[in-house]
């Protein structure tokens, strides 16, 4: 199945979540229903997810984010791209991000 995530698009946090940084942890709190269940559903990101999330500014196309991460972490772009698309698919499924352009 084709990924709904495009490397040519920019993505940013959805207004349907509140993102908080508490004691070094990035916590994503659903604001509206349909993101987690109706109760007790908060999410945090692993290190990889956090590095990607912090670059989702809604302005840069995802390809630029991949290139930046590949340079910073000295990792193959293909591997990074897989991680970035994987995270964004997960976040999109949870309605935590939106396509900004």
């Amino acid at each position, binding site marked *: 199945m084709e990924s709904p995530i495009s490397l040519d698009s920019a993505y940013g946090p959805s207004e349907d979540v*509140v993102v908080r940084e508490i*004691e*070094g942890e990035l*916590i994503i709190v659903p604001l509206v*229903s349909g993101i987690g269940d109706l*109760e*007790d559903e908060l999410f945090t990101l692993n*290190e990889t997810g956090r590095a990607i999330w912090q670059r989702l500014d809604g302005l840069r196309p995802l390809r630029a984010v991949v290139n930046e991460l590949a340079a910073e972490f000295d990792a193959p772009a293909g591997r990074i791209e897989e991680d970035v698309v994987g995270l964004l698919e997960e*976040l999109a499924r949870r309605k935590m991000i939106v396509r900004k352009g």
Partner: protein
Amino acid sequence: MSPAAKAFTRKVESGRADFWKAGRPRLARLDIELTERCNNDCVHCSINLPDGDDEAKRRESTTAEIKNILAEAASLGCLSVRFTGGEPLLREDFEETYMAARKLGLRVRIFTNATLVTPRLAAVLKKVPPLEKMEVSVYGMTSETSEKVTGNPGAYEASRRGIGLLSGHGIPFVLKGVVVPDTKGEMDRFEAWAREISGAAGRPAYAVLFDLRSRRDNEAKNDRIRELRMGPREYVELESRLRKSHAGELRGFVARFAGTSGDRLFACLADTGSVDAYGRFQVCLLLRHPETVFDLKKSSLRSAVEEFLPKVREMRASDPAYLERCGRCFLKALCLLCPARSWTEHGTLDTPVEYLCGITHAQAVSIGVIREGEKSWAVADWRARVERLTASPKDRETARIEGREEC
């Protein structure tokens, strides 16, 4: 980057100490009493003022003050707030306050009697869920019982209407009953009804051991509350009826937490706090002793949490009766006595409460860790007795036959 990372997000179990890698937030949970006023006038209530008490209403924190407290709580890492009262839905700004909390990324736990739930509020709660189960108190299975308990004609019908709205909108909630003479005979019906309600999670909880007035403001009401309290034996029987595993749980609890506390007063968690209806920080909502209250209108929530709270938690008992009895009692963790209940009963922080002592002793007798008439603070070999609680049934039987079983 981690090449093997496949699941990038995970659910937060913030109550688990090992979740926080760098350290727990300074304030994990905050209880906010939005008002002391209530549209019910329940016979057993430790706090309610009449809903038309204009003087109380005038003194209550403003919407802006509550929003400031919420923002400060979020900045201290707070993840969850509880809105309680009185009846919190009496506040005309409830929806605004609720939305402010949720937009700060706070989970909200709402304690309510559900009588003031409107279609509009239910729709808001459906669209922007509280992320915690609401807790809905129910005061009888008939209009007549409800009126006897709440003193509010029409409360039964209004409560059922509110619960119907929550259920119809798919908002999860826990039902809570109250065990007073008028409702005792309705418990089976209440539980059967609760099982049928969509959205009502699990078995209902019950208010059983009633606290006296936390403002120490009404001796006539206190007398009535004392009359409603069940005796120690009846309490043990009720607990066994409510939970088949009660005795086992009790044994497990005592085996795990038995021990003496000396002059240490506060055993509660260090990362929670409360704010009363007038913007005063307290360790918990029941504890209104002047030495344990901090005025947020004169200082910040951060100061309350970081400077005031640690000092309060270091307070020590000095009452000789407390030190002789409670300080030496190996069942202290089982007992509900705490500075708040010493305050409501005696106006002090460290006076034994006979009622709670009786309840604790009855529980301990029921699992055989003390004998009838024995005082827990005078048990010299409590460690050996507690050890036997965890021994196998065969070991206990052998000990009994050999005459080593002391109680």
